[in-house]
């Protein structure tokens, strides 16, 4: 169908992605791409396959069929570690932080700075503390004490720290999976600010949500997923907030856009 050729300018190009869990076909030939320094809103109702698509990209699930290009090269992402190596950082909906660990330890989890004493490697705690404060302050998150446990903080603060960490470590692509679903209005606004900060840092962002209101303000483009298929890509200039909301609910492209979309596809 469309986009069979690899798109040379895109940072991520996922072509014809299929993912079956046993006999359940969750993704049935989805094409998805992210350009450089672009914020993409990945939208769809619950169960549409947004999270599965992202988990394929971040190595949590292996794909059944399809090809992923990252930075122009065909890649084979088999574990979260591989995705990290490529420069993809993800803030998962439910698996962001360890509540009983301190902020500094959470921040550096999986890639702790160490110093060597003979054959032993010890955590560089002073650097862990100072650097995590500094890094979080850079994206506008101010914490009191890096030794405070994450469990004592509010949902918004935790989400901020998870995003701050992803922005700090992310080199190319930042994926936010439903980052605003449990947040207050003020906290949501903060998350949107961090998203823009990441874009200004030169990263691309995939912002997954089922609530268009949370992302319309910052996204450059919307990709709507509907029951395992892609409904379409829409630049912000083309559509209104309400049209996007309608599409997510009804799963149909409005009359006005359908023609335009077909032209864009080139059929």
């Amino acid at each position: 169908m469309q986009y069979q050729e690899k798109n040379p300018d895109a940072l991520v190009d996922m072509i014809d992605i299929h993912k079956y869990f046993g006999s359940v076909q969750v993704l049935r030939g989805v094409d998805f791409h992210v350009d450089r320094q672009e914020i993409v809103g990945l939208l769809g109702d619950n169960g549409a396959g947004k999270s599965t698509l992202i988990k394929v990209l971040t190595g949590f699930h292996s794909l059944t069929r399809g090809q992923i290009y990252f930075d122009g090269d065909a890649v084979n992402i088999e574990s979260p570690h591989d995705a990290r190596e490529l420069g993809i950082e993800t803030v998962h909906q439910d698996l962001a932080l360890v509540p009983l660990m301190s902020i500094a330890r959470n921040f550096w989890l999986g890639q702790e700075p160490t110093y060597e004493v003979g054959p032993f490697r010890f955590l560089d705690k002073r650097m862990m503390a100072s650097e995590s404060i500094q890094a979080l302050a850079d994206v506008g998150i101010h914490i009191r004490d890096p030794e405070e446990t994450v469990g004592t903080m509010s949902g918004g603060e935790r989400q901020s720290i998870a995003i701050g960490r992803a922005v700090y470590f992310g080199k190319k692509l930042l994926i936010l999976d439903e980052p605003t679903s449990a947040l207050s209005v003020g906290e949501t606004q903060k998350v949107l600010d961090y998203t823009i900060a990441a874009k200004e840092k030169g990263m691309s962002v995939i912002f997954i949500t089922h609530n268009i209101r949370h992302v319309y303000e910052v996204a450059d483009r919307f990709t709507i997923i509907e029951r395992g298929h892609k409904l379409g890509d829409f630049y912000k200039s083309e559509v209104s907030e309400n049209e996007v909301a309608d599409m997510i609910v009804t799963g149909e492209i409005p009359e006005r856009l359908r023609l335009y979309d077909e032209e864009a596809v080139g059929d």
Partner: protein
Amino acid sequence: MMQAYLENKHEGRNIGLLITFIMSGLAVLGLLVALMVALGWMPLGERDNIPRWSEGLNVYENIVMIAALLYALCCARATYGLYIRESASLRWSQWMLFVTAMLGGVILLSVVIPVGLKFSLLLGQNIDLRALINENQLAAASLAIGEGLISICLLVLALLALLALFVFLIPPLEVLRHTEGIRLIVAPPRRLIQAILIVFAVGIVFMLIAGIYAVPLYPGVTKIRDVEEHRILAGLLIFLPALYGYRQVRQVREESDELRRAVALTPGKFIRAELAKSPSAGAIIGFIAIFMAFTMATDLFLEPSSIASFLSNVATKGVIAIGVTYLMISGEFDLSVGSILGVTALSFMLFMTEGAPVVGVLDPIPAAILAIFVALALGAVNGILLITTGIPSFIVTLGTLLAYRAITLVAIAGGRILRYKDFYADFPVIGISNIIFVVLSVIGLLLVAFTGYRVLPVLWRLAAQAWSIRSDNGDFGTSGAIVRFVIFLVVLLIMAAIVVWLVAVFGYHISASGGQLVEVGYFDLFNGRVLSIGSEGDFFHLDIPRDANVRLAILWWFIFVVFFHVILMNTSFGNSIFAAGGNQGAARAQGVNVDRVKVQNFVIVAVLTGIAAIYETARNPGVDPLKGQGWELEVIAMTVIGGALLTGGYGSVVGSLLGALIFGMLQTGLVLVGIESRLFTGTVGVIIIAAVVLNTFVRGSQQN
């Protein structure tokens, strides 16, 4: 009220003056205590086993004297602060009153605990009560109760006199400014009722003590310390006013910003906040409480031989508890350690006596290493089973608990015991050259030097930093800085002591006849009595009393605790253990290989269990088929008392150490006070629940 006083308002005057007055009284009291101790009028701890520095004061007396002087100084400072209406003095007075209440409470407890113990034993041993009557000694008891009644009358009189004195003392103070002061005592009748109730309670307790004191008739109960009832009055006199004063000061929490800052940190809050930082808070409190209780209950507890005996008893289990803590932090636990211990001990014994399959009969050290590899394999089986099948670790290790036990049951047929002595007449000995000890002491010196090089400058810098910003840290800035200097000094002194000891060892062995080998028992190297290692037992040059059973395993245990603590807190492996137990999904998402961490922890538990098995076998060279049975739950109990969460993600190695120490103290202490050892398991059960409740409580205060 207080802050009204400090703001020079009218209505707070009475309470303010009262507290100022109490503080000045306490300052005088502190000075008096120091003076009395210094002049030898107030002997503390007449027991023989408290080391005396010279013919003069003993250690306790010196400590109390210094503390009393400091205390008087602080009280005077607080009084002055209150006098000049300095807001920070509120906090000072809080602390002083808090400490005073604690002191009084401890004095009270030192009477109440032995009395309670004696009383419970009295109730429990009804047979002896009958014997009592037979021997016509009931008369003595009733006489004692009669004496008690007389003394309660005297006491009531004394207390009334004291109350009157108190009432008479306040008005002159108050009349200076205002006549309102009398209301404090008279107006609310609630206080009067309280006072009467307290007097009655004191009377009843006093009678009880007098009664029990006069009945020292039980053969098994004589080990409980004699009750010194004169302390109860002193304790009450210190405890109640201080508690009352503390409650008065603590209530202040109103408008003025400066004042709110001054009172924000009440001692209770401060201590809770400090404790909440550590996962083993419950264990720390429990350790102090149980240690104090046993010290107060019996004279036999604080003796080197008792302490050495309980340390030796729990050292092997403590080693396993370290591993179980690791495993529990990563969200799993291991029921099979007891069986692994049995299998390892059996393999160790078999390798030495009947020989291993390929290599034949082995010397103890290779046999120990091979046996530990057997344990490692068993642990790896546990871990791999868990990861590949996804069955909960409870089921997996319950299965292996039974399966591994079958190995020892099958290998040692008919319930006999495999004894080393059945094969060889003598325990194996190894010839060790003095040069090895010389080298070891040099390595030790180098290690100390390296540690000092890394740690001391950091400590000094911290102290200097605290000193340079002491004025920014409020009233406690200076004392905080002093505390840091003291910590630096203590570490320095400990290091110096180790250096002196190592130099002595070095000197002894280098001057000994070179080249000639010294014979040491192999088993003694693993877990021998420190004093009997080597020909004259002075290999280690340690100054330990002869009757103290200090085993080498204690040393190994402490080394393991330090080693595994550093790994847990200071490496990325330790970080991934916490993450694996705290939130598996998050750990995976951050690239931690959770499965590998869990298998590694199962292996660590098994290896430590293997090491413990070697210690146990070395202490008593023989294996029976049920060796280690029941250890798994004891070790889990130690870990849980130490603050680890069964659900994972929380815990500490130091906590496991404290848990094991609590366990050992109970085991030894209950016997020492004369309570039947059958009550031990029940006591441990209560302690576990209490410790977990305490841990949850302290952690809860951290969340707020």
